[in-house]
């Protein structure tokens, strides 16, 4: 019988050398990640991605290309569930990321604890954009329920921004009528009766109001309204900040299952952590998002009108409960729409 141990030793030695060579070679490279986001963040992330690529190149030597996808927040969450290979999700509201946990098991349940501020690196408020000179005399959410006022807001079934709008109006009503839910429901129903068209996303609703000239008032993300007011059509519109409105806290998360598959865990995490740096916060503020960082917030304080802000947790509780009560099939929004027909 032939002695084989020396041959085997040789084979293992050669294999070991090859494997070590492989390990050594995991070096500088070009990485691509996909950020799936909601509608109004397009301009912000174009600037942010550029800054992040520079930062990451300096930090690691790797080139990183960040691709963007935008749409209604709920639609984007569904697209991810349907296979869109997002590395990070920067969506309009926490519920849409909860869906990725529950239905897609793409990230852990405690995702909000992985980054500061419940994984919401920047905020916004829900405000009102009216036509030049405010011809309908709109100053508060209350004015939106008046007969003859045409209100533009997207569909809460598909748009995260629209859900914030709905909750802003509902929260305003609860505060005005001391928590009277029936009055709040009637008030919000009156607003939706004044809504001629429900777009599927916030950017579509902006198009409806700004470009198509439909409606008297547009319930909008503050950043989206400020973007319009600082754009080419700024002379055509005025901003109305209600005395009380909701603090919108769009969340961000890396999708563990996808980043592991793509080998992009470190860069995806670094990308979201960069949002919290002064540079990231400054870019957010320049794009009219309210920064979390106190120093940057101070620098940009004149940009944001003072108002009394309430959070969704303070008034409504957890997102899953909110979804079930207001926006799920047969929820309050469906009832309102049915009654308004």
């Amino acid at each position, binding site marked *: *019988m*032939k002695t*084989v141990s020396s*041959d*085997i030793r040789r*084979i*293992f030695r*050669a*294999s070991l050398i*090859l*494997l070590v*060579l*492989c*390990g050594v*070679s*995991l070096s500088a*490279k*070009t*990485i691509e990640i996909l950020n799936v986001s909601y509608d109004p963040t397009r301009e912000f992330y174009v600037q942010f991605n550029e800054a992040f690529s520079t930062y990451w190149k300096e930090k690691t030597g790797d080139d990183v290309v960040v691709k963007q996808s935008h749409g209604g927040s709920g*639609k984007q969450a*569904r697209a991810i*569930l*349907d*296979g869109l290979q997002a590395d990070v999700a920067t969506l309009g509201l926490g519920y849409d990321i909860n869906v990725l946990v529950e*239905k*897609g*098991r793409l990230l852990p349940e405690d995702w909000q604890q992985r980054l500061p501020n419940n994984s919401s690196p920047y905020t916004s408020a829900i405000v009102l954009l009216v036509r030049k000179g405010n011809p309908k005399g709109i100053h508060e959410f209350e004015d939106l329920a008046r007969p003859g006022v*045409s209100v533009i807001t997207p569909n809460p079934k*598909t748009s995260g921004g629209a859900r914030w709008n709905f909750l802003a109006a509902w929260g305003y009503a609860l505060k005005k009528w001391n928590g009277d839910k029936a009055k709040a429901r009637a008030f919000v129903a009156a607003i939706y009766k004044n809504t*001629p*068209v*429900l*777009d*599927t996303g916030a950017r*579509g609703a902006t198009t*409806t109001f700004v470009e*198509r*000239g*439909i409606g008297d008032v547009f319930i909008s993300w503050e950043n989206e309204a400020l973007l319009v007011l600082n754009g080419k059509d700024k002379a055509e519109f005025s901003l109305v900040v209600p005395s009380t409105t909701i603090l919108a806290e769009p969340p961000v998360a890396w999708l563990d*299952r996808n980043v*592991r*598959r*793509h*080998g*992009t865990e470190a860069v995806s995490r670094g990308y979201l952590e960069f949002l919290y740096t002064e540079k990231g916060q400054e870019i957010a503020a320049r794009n009219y998002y309210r920064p979390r960082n106190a120093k940057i917030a101070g620098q940009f304080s004149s940009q944001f009108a003072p108002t009394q802000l309430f959070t969704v947790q303070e008034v409504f509780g957890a997102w899953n409960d909110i979804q079930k009560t207001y926006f799920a099939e047969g929820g309050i929004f469906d009832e309102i729409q049915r009654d308004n027909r």
Partner: protein
Amino acid sequence: MSIPIRYSAGLFASTIVSLAVLAADDTEAQLRQLREQLSALDQKIRTLERQREVDQEIAVDKAKAQPLATIDDKGFTIRSADTNFTMRIHGVFQGDGRFYFDHAAGAANDTFLARRVRPIFDGTVYRLFDYRLMLDFGSGLNSAAANVGFVQDAYVNMNIDPAFQIRVGKDKVPLSLERLQSDVDLGLPERGFPSVIAPNRDTGIQFRGEPWGGKFEYQLGVFNGLSDGGSGDFETTDSGKDVVARVFFQPFRDQRAKWLKGIGLGVGGSYGDQRGAVRSYVSTGQQTIFSYLNGNGSTPLTPQVTAGGEHWRVEPQAWYYWGSLGILGEYIVSDQKLQRTAGTSVLQTRADNRGWQIQGSWFFTGEENTFRTVNPLRPFTLGDGGWGALQAVARINQLTLDNQLFPVFANPDTSVSKASEWSVGINWYLNRLVRVSADYSQTHYEGGAKNPATAKDEKVLISRVQLSF
């Protein structure tokens, strides 16, 4: 008179002015009303137009939310709107012609055959669980107690994460590189000698994954255990199990430098305890070239060789793909404890059999070479200038049997101690699904002079028409 006239004139003038003002007020009011009506109508038209756009957008989204059935080059696919449930029905057909030249009397006959006829059902349930059932009705396949030959693959794969999956059922044993290559993607119609030694399909459980974006691939499994080249789905001779492991690296996979990207290196191995029947080895032309003594073992004249315990294999393996060039190489050692029973005489030994191959291929038509299915740049179309892809393939490979086997465990007159083969072939990919191949293979044998299959060098032309979808 002058005063009344003056008054009258004043009254007249004031009346005219009043009437004019009244008329102007009336016109202004009408105009305002008209403007308001126009504005309202304009709003209604704009709203209707916008509503139509939104309705179209919603209709598109709704269509996406419907279950989908498609038929295309990947087969017939049904999937739920959320893609959590899918089923794909597809298949493989390989029609071969084998023509032997200059062979001894009693060797294999020239023949046409259906080498593989495989309907395949695979898909996903509840997003997490993948499944695959591949049957085979190819020529000459049969079933035994230890293996239902008609069932090639039958497994459930729990797709927890690309980096970690659990697969249970009958599947290819993750050891040999060419064995793991899909039958439809082989460079030459028949695999090389390393696959004769490596196990084929076995039943068990394996943990597998591709972390770091596929740069690293691993499999670790426990299987029933097989003799060399065999398939099985039921343990009939022992309770021993094989532990099989394989790692494979593509460290430069996402590098820009194309000449580096296609380097793949790995090693596979198995260890276990096996008893019972041992298999014969076959040539490229599928003729039996080596058999252990296979009498009934009851008398000194009818010795029987069986697996007698420890069995391990190890196989370093590599590939390299750069543009149209592809190279694949592997070297396998199979070391098995054997037992020879002849009446009351029982002998034991260890067989150390080896095989290796180097295979190279090149696309004349510019396609990117790959371990997997090739997409022709210009699929064949009648009268439209597309001729498909043309690939040349060459291979050298060798099988070496342990000298210690002869003559006590194997008959040197009927079994070879070494087989050295070279092959050249040409593959014409008419499109992604249809391929026509021709391969000439010549194998030189040492030993086996009284076996018609090995008395002379095997010279065989294998042609194949393949449809896989």
